[in-house]
């Protein structure tokens, strides 16, 4: 508790005088408290999380499915068939659609039509964060672009702003489309936007993102700011591409093809 009795009384007194009653007093106190929350001692720490997707290591359909299911199952992502209303955090797109700007006619056929894993790029300069009118989507200090489904008002501005199509809106009641509910993670309601949150809640417990864990080394995750991290080692040893890097959002998901 870093707030003195004197400060507490000051905030409480001022709020009563201004007639705001309890709410603003609690808010003011929370501001002090919020910054002081201790992280789990086991929490993974980084200046800038990033991911490298080694697409060569995805060989069978099962390789993709395992990664996608791991995420969608623990996050209670509803399974909606209609592509117009589907909700997805991590999924596959063929190379030509994932990288429409660098899709060349005469590249090897197997790459051209190969499914690529796509997800939120956790951009370092995220357009979605800039446009959100209620800070429901925001960037954490370690670079994770967060989505607070409880604050989202459902204006869908972030969906217009995201150049990667990474965001899904709940057009239907999502709870009707969840087969097995994971009680560890909240389900959502209709009318809010959701997306990959890079398993911040696992990272804070010292665990890697679920997709990384399920990928058998095909997804590499680590601190971009740390020259000795695995992502940096992989990035310096391989030629990599990013989706729509020319737009300046600084996507943090790299692909080895």
């Amino acid at each position: 508790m870093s707030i003195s009795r004197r400060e507490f009384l000051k905030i409480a007194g001022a709020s009563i005088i201004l007639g705001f009653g309890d709410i603003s007093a609690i808010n003011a106190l929370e501001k002090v408290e919020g910054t002081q929350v201790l992280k789990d001692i086991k929490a993974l720490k980084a200046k800038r999380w990033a991911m490298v997707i080694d697409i060569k290591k995805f060989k069978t359909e099962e390789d993709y499915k395992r990664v996608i299911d791991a995420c969608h199952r623990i996050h209670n992502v509803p399974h909606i068939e209609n592509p117009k209303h589907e909700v997805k955090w991590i999924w596959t797109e063929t190379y030509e659609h994932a990288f429409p700007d660098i899709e060349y006619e005469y590249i090897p056929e197997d790459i051209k039509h190969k499914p690529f894993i796509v997800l939120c790029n956790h951009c370092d300069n995220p357009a979605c964060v800039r446009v959100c009118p209620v800070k429901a989507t925001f960037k954490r200090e370690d670079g994770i672009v967060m989505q607070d489904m409880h604050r989202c008002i459902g204006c869908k501005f972030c969906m217009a702003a995201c150049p990667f199509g990474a965001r899904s809106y709940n057009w239907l009641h999502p709870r009707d489309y969840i087969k097995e509910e994971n009680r560890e993670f909240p389900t959502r309601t209709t009318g809010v936007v959701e997306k990959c949150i890079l398993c911040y809640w696992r990272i804070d417990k010292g665990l890697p993102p679920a997709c990384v864990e399920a990928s058998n080394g095909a997804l590499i995750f680590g601190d971009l700011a740390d020259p000795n991290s695995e992502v940096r080692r992989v990035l310096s040893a391989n030629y990599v591409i990013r989706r729509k890097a020319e737009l300046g959002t600084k996507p943090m998901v790299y692909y080895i093809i």
Partner: protein
Amino acid sequence: MLEAAIKGRPRYWGWVLFLLGVIIIGFIAWLREHHLGSGLTTGLSRDVSWGLHVGQLTFFVGVAASAVMVVLPYYLHNYKAFGRITIMGEFLAICAVVISMLSVFVIMGQPARVWNVLLHPTPRSVIFWDLLVLMVYLILNALCGWTVLSAERKDVPPPKWIKPFIYWAIIWAPSIHTVTAFLYAGLPGRAHWMTALQAAHFLATAFAAGPCLLIILSMIARKVSRFDPGSIAIQTLAKIATYALIIHIFFIGLEFFTAFYSQIPDHMRSLQYLYVGLEGHKELVPVMWTSSILAVIGLFLLVIPATRRNENSLAIAALAVFFSIWLDKGFTFVAGGFIPNPFERVTGYWPALNEFLVAAGVWAIGFLVLTILYKVAVSIKEEMVFDKYGEKQVRT
């Protein structure tokens, strides 16, 4: 002054009841959307996440801004012919802002949380600024319109303190539409919207569609009441709309040149989808061409002096231009920006019936506000002229 709104002939009450009926249907449709989920009640999708309602925001902010086209000549240049129509422009702006704000409100997936926009002000978001400038503009127009009208009723000149607010409203009008354009023009990866011309183009369309609507409303006011905004005012509005329409068509040409001479695919594809269809999807092509044809009809009728001066052909021109721009800005512009999607896939868009009914409810609320305000204004204007001169209002 409001008492004038509760005195009226059966025709007036019939119209008010009709609007109330549409509002109730719209409200039920809105509740239905939230009950079933907007997946089942709108034409929107993961790929085209904004549609008809955001189009209404875009279009009606323009109508609101266009009030400056009567306010500015009257107050800054003392253009007397606009003396009677200025209040109509200001009250139309109020109606249009109401429609704009409600159009944003109805897209919200969690309407109960919408006050978070003010509870957690986020100045980096354009929506925050849009809400702010629209609210200020609403208050300014209500204040200026009401104060000037009250003074007129008492047969005294308007108070001096209102002047700064009138000038403020004049500066504010272009700013509301500029902010609306910034909702679109600053998004990476939406090439159709990303043009520095956006705000200027929006203003051009606004200054064409707004005066055309005012011409139509003036003609209606003249038919249903003894109040006549005056032929000179209508003719001046027609000239304003003509120039603005020409600039709008010129700007469309500029967009086409940039996209198709540069041959940059991202800049061409939305235009291709809208005008000829893309990958077999042609949902909005008929709408776009209807808009284009109406614009050409309006252009000819407005540019040729004889058809502009003839009030019958002018009425047709005004309707043509209004609907041309509505179809473009209020319908296809928003969806067009989403097509193709970030994966270069084409998902079409067409509004669902329920979505249309919600929009109709929003229009009806706006037009109910307009009806009440116009009823008050017209009653005062009618009285004023009779008291002062003891004769029927002269048609100039």
